[in-house]
């Protein structure tokens, strides 16, 4: 053939095996998410940084002054603890749940159905496993920002009698959020439209936000609802962050809460891998 006869210039070498550390592909996907966030972080400012202050101001201090009217801690069952100090760590965990859930809806479905960003990645050495791991790693980064912002507010307002232990609320907040990110990402990968997301928010995240012990102890729920609350990651996340922040955490129960969150996340990662693979490889 005339053109391939331009000898030597034709690239014919058998390719070397493509090798890089297993984490390399994950980091590249994480970098992609970070680059997108750098373009649109302003839209998340309110939810991440302003709303903690508003919520704490209105509910913690405003409503708290009514709750604490008799004696601090009388209403919540933790004597001597102001309602604001009771509420703040709970809000941290519950907000992580909301952010973690939201980040796994439109961004994930959009990258599969609308922009086909993941498909573009798969034309490179990136694998489905890299995509799932990188995306979940990004959820963790976003959650760290949210939990970190809350933690700063908690410490600044002197709401953490537990002292430096309160910093542990950040990793627990991340875990609480990831319980929802992983499972909702797995769900989003099965969706062709955004119709399902409203259902998740209305009948999933909003009730969990309100009734999982964030604003009042689950012991105040009707008896038949209490076992349901114990089965939600939100309850375990809220309880553990609160105990850490107040300095009343005990190793045994803390490990149970932690184990619950970790198991839910592990199963969510596996579910994401299954549904992402189904959506992207065919």
């Amino acid at each position, binding site marked *: *053939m005339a*053109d*391939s006869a*331009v000898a030597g*210039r*034709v*690239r*014919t*070498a*058998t*390719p*070397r*095996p*493509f090798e*890089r550390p297993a984490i*390399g*592909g994950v980091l*590249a996907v994480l*970098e*992609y998410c970070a*680059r*997108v966030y750098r*373009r*649109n972080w302003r839209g998340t400012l309110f939810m991440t940084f302003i709303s903690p202050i508003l919520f704490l101001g209105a509910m913690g201090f405003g409503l708290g002054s009514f709750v604490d009217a008799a004696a601090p801690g009388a209403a919540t069952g933790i004597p001597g603890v102001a309602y604001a100090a009771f509420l703040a760590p709970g809000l941290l965990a519950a907000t992580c749940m909301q952010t973690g859930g939201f980040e796994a809806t439109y961004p994930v479905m959009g990258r599969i159905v609308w*922009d*086909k*960003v993941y*498909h*573009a*990645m*798969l*034309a*490179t*050495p*990136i*694998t489905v496993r890299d995509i799932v791991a990188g995306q979940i790693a990004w959820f963790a980064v976003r959650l760290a920002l949210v939990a970190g912002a809350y933690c700063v507010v908690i410490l600044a307002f002197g709401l953490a009698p537990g002292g430096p232990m309160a910093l542990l609320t950040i990793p627990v907040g991340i875990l609480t959020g990831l319980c929802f990110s992983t499972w909702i990402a797995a769900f989003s990968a099965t969706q062709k439209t955004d119709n399902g997301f409203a259902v998740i928010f209305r009948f999933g995240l909003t009730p969990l936000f309100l009734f999982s012990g964030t604003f009042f102890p689950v012991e105040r729920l009707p008896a038949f609802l209490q076992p349901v609350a114990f089965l939600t990651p939100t309850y375990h996340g809220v309880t553990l962050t609160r105990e850490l922040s107040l300095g009343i955490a005990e190793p045994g129960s803390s490990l149970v809460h932690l184990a619950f969150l970790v198991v839910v996340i592990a199963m969510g990662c596996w579910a994401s891998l299954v549904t992402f693979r189904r959506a992207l*490889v*065919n």
Partner: protein
Amino acid sequence: MPDPGSSEPSLIHARGLTKKFGDLVAVDSVDFDVAPGEAFGFLGPNGAGKTSTMRMIGCVSPVTSGTLRVLGLDPVTDGPSIRARIGVVPQSDTLDMELRVRENLIIYGRYFDLSHREAGRRADDLLKFVQLDERAQDRVEPLSGGMKRRLTIARSLINEPDLLLLDEPTTGLDPQARHLLWDKLYRLKQQGVTLVLTTHYMDEAEQLCDRLVVMDKARIVAEGSPRQLIERYSTREVLELRFPPGVQETLDGLFEGLAERIERLPDRVLLYTTDGEAASLEAHRRGLQPESALVRRSTLEDVFLRLTGRSLIE
């Protein structure tokens, strides 16, 4: 003509390659070889199985059955190594609308494990190559269709691939944008990049492809260079006769013997012959009064019509 039995290894080697989606057979046991340095085309109408074949070559779609080797490797076990050496221009652009033009290239380079510095250097070179360097910091969304396509091609080159897969590279573009793209692809071919493309434009296939296969209904129905295919399946010239509406249907029998082969399309009659002028004169002698009579050379469109009984673009 590359010979599969020759010592030079095929860049792509397929035998009995099959893709099924449930009961639907998208690609039905096709055989082909692509030699290093050539421009190889899959020509066929929508739904012929071209994209499914390309996605298997690109190691993003698992082979249902048959043998496939790309760059001498097996997509099942060496997917990432193969993909590291190929560039892919998918049928619809998968550019990232949330990132800027140059950033689209840089992050893509990162997927290939390039350093930031190297990805940046290549991005600048490639943006010049596709004449988008002045748009480097712009958003992707407002770019024209042709610019987006050029950006997608630039992105596919960030890993300096040995093999470039182009799925309908110019569909939906205006003629000027198409010619600009063809020029870029021709330059790549001259640089030694092997091109594999699908198209349903015969002029694109004729312009770009050294060799092509015609696909129809999941199978390969013919294979050769554009000229070989035209010689084998068509005549040197074609006489196209157009009649006023309703007239053609009344002319049964009057075309007999005018040409080696006659195709009657809804809007015109095609007479395949070595001498179009002579056929035209003979038609007039028989009293046929077409609205217009055009003598032209045979194209791949005629080849396709002959092979499948249908036009490429309906």
